[in-house]
C-alpha cells in the first residue's frame, strides 16, 4: 500500500482546487486562506487524505471514509509534524473533536483543554502547558487574596484599556494584565506590550505579562483572527476553559475584567463564553462600561480609524499621554504608515 505523503504546492491554483473540493465534497470543510502548507496522500489521481498547517497549528485534517483503517493517520500526521519541525516549529497544536482525542494521543499529542466544549485542543513537543504553568508561577505576587486578570490586545493602548485596568486595580490585591502575543495586529507585540507597561506604570499592584501560547493565541482561538463564525462559540469556550482550568489557579485569579462590547460580534461572543465557563470554576466576570470622548466610544479600532484618516485630534483624545508619545515617536512611524495603507480591522 502506498501511503506516501506529498507536500502540495498550494501556490499552484489547480492543486489547491483539488484539496478544496476534497475537503468540501467529503467533509463540508472549508479551506483557510491563510494555510501555509498542505500535505496529501493520493491513490491514483484522487486525494484520500489531507492535513494542513499554518504557523504552529495543524488544521483541515481529513481522511476519506473508504480508506479508514489503512493506517493513513500516522504517516499523514507524522509527516505534518516533521515538516513543521523542519520549519522550526517545535511546539505544535491541533484542534479536534473530542471523539478523535485518542487517535492523537497515540501519536504523542497531549490534551490541553476541551472537557466542557465541543472541541479539544491538543499539543505536541517538548514544550507544554505544565512547563508554562511552572514559569507563570514565578510571576505571582502579592498576598493571598483577590487577584484579577485582564486580557488585552491593545492595538494600540487607549484610555479605555487604562480605565478597565484602573477599575480592576482599585478593587483587587493584584492584577495580571495579559497582552495577546499573536502577531496578527497592526501594532507588533513588542510595541503593544510596551505601550501597556508605560501606560500602567503608576499602578503598583498591576503586573503586565505576555499572553503566550495559551491565551487568545492562534492555537486557542483561531477564529478571533479568521472570523469563521461557526467555530467561534466553541473556540471562545475552549479559550475560557483553558484560562479557568490552567492559568487562573496558578496566579490565584478570582475575577476577570472585560469591557462591554457594543460593536464587535467576536468580542461579544467571547464575553458570553467567559461568563458561561468562568462561572463553572467560581471565577467572577466584571463587565465594565466603555468610556466616551465627545460622545464617541473609545476603542482601539476607533483610534486606528482616526490614524488612518489623519485625524490626530481624535487620536489624542482617545489615548493616554504615554501612548500619544509612542505614536508620535520615530519608532512608531513604520506602524503608522502601515495603518494608513491598510483596510484590515485588526
Amino acid at each position: 500500500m502506498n501511503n506516501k505523503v506529498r507536500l502540495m504546492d498550494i501556490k499552484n491554483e489547480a492543486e489547491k482546487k483539488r484539496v478544496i473540493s476534497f475537503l468540501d465534497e467529503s467533509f463540508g470543510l472549508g479551506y483557510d486562506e491563510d494555510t501555509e502548507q498542505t500535505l496529501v496522500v493520493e491513490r491514483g489521481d484522487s486525494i484520500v487524505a489531507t492535513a494542513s498547517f499554518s504557523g504552529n497549528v495543524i488544521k483541515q485534517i481529513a481522511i476519506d471514509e473508504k480508506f479508514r483503517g489503512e493506517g493513513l493517520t500516522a504517516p499523514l500526521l507524522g509527516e505534518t509534524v516533521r515538516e513543521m519541525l523542519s520549519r522550526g516549529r517545535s511546539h505544535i497544536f491541533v484542534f479536534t473533536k473530542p471523539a478523535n482525542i485518542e487517535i492523537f494521543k497515540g501519536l504523542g499529542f497531549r490534551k490541553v483543554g476541551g472537557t466542557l466544549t465541543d472541541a479539544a485542543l491538543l499539543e505536541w513537543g517538548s514544550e507544554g502547558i505544565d512547563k508554562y504553568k511552572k514559569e507563570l508561577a514565578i510571576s505571582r505576587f502579592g498576598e493571598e487574596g483577590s487577584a484579577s486578570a485582564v486580557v488585552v490586545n491593545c492595538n494600540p493602548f487607549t484610555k479605555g484599556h487604562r480605565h478597565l485596568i484602573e477599575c480592576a486595580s482599585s478593587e483587587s490585591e493584584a492584577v495580571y494584565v495579559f497582552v495577546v502575543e499573536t502577531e496578527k495586529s497592526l501594532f507588533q507585540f513588542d510595541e503593544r506590550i510596551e505601550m501597556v507597561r508605560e501606560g500602567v506604570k503608576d499602578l503598583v499592584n498591576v503586573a503586565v505579562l505576555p499572553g503566550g501560547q495559551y491565551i487568545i493565541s492562534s492555537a486557542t482561538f483561531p477564529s478571533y483572527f479568521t472570523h469563521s463564525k461557526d467555530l467561534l462559540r466553541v473556540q471562545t469556550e475552549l479559550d475560557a476553559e483553558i484560562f479557568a482550568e490552567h492559568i487562573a489557579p496558578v496566579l490565584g485569579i478570582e475575577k476577570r475584567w472585560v469591557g462591554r462590547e457594543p460593536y464587535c460580534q467576536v468580542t461579544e461572543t467571547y464575553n458570553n463564553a467567559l461568563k458561561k465557563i468562568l462561572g463553572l470554576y467560581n471565577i467572577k466576570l466584571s463587565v465594565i462600561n466603555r468610556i466616551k470622548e465627545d460622545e464617541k466610544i473609545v476603542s482601539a479600532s476607533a483610534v486606528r480609524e482616526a490614524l488612518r484618516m489623519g485625524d490626530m485630534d481624535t487620536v489624542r483624545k482617545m489615548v493616554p499621554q504615554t501612548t500619544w508619545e509612542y505614536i508620535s515617536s520615530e519608532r512608531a512611524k513604520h506602524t503608522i504608515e502601515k495603518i494608513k495603507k491598510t483596510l484590515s480591522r485588526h
Partner: protein
Amino acid sequence: MEKRNAKAGSLESSDLLVVIEENKPGEELEIVMHSIVEKQYGDRIVQIAHEIATQKGLANVRILIQDRGALDYAIRARIETAMERFERGL
C-alpha cells in the same frame, strides 16, 4: 517560536521520532520522553538517550523522544542519527 532543531525517525507504529533542540544558554541536558510503553520502558529509553548524549558530549540540548513502541536498537539508531544531524547543522 522558531528554534533550530534536528530530527530522525517517524510517528509510525514501532518507530520513534527524536528531536534535538538547542536549549537556552546555561541550561543543562534535558530529556523529554513520551512513549506508549512509558510505564514499562520509559526509564530505559531515557537512560539510552542519556548514555549517547554523554558519549557525544552534547550538553546544552533538549532531546524529545516520541516513542511508539520501538525496539532498543531502533531507539539507539534514531537517537544517534538525530544527534549527528544536529552536530552537522552547527
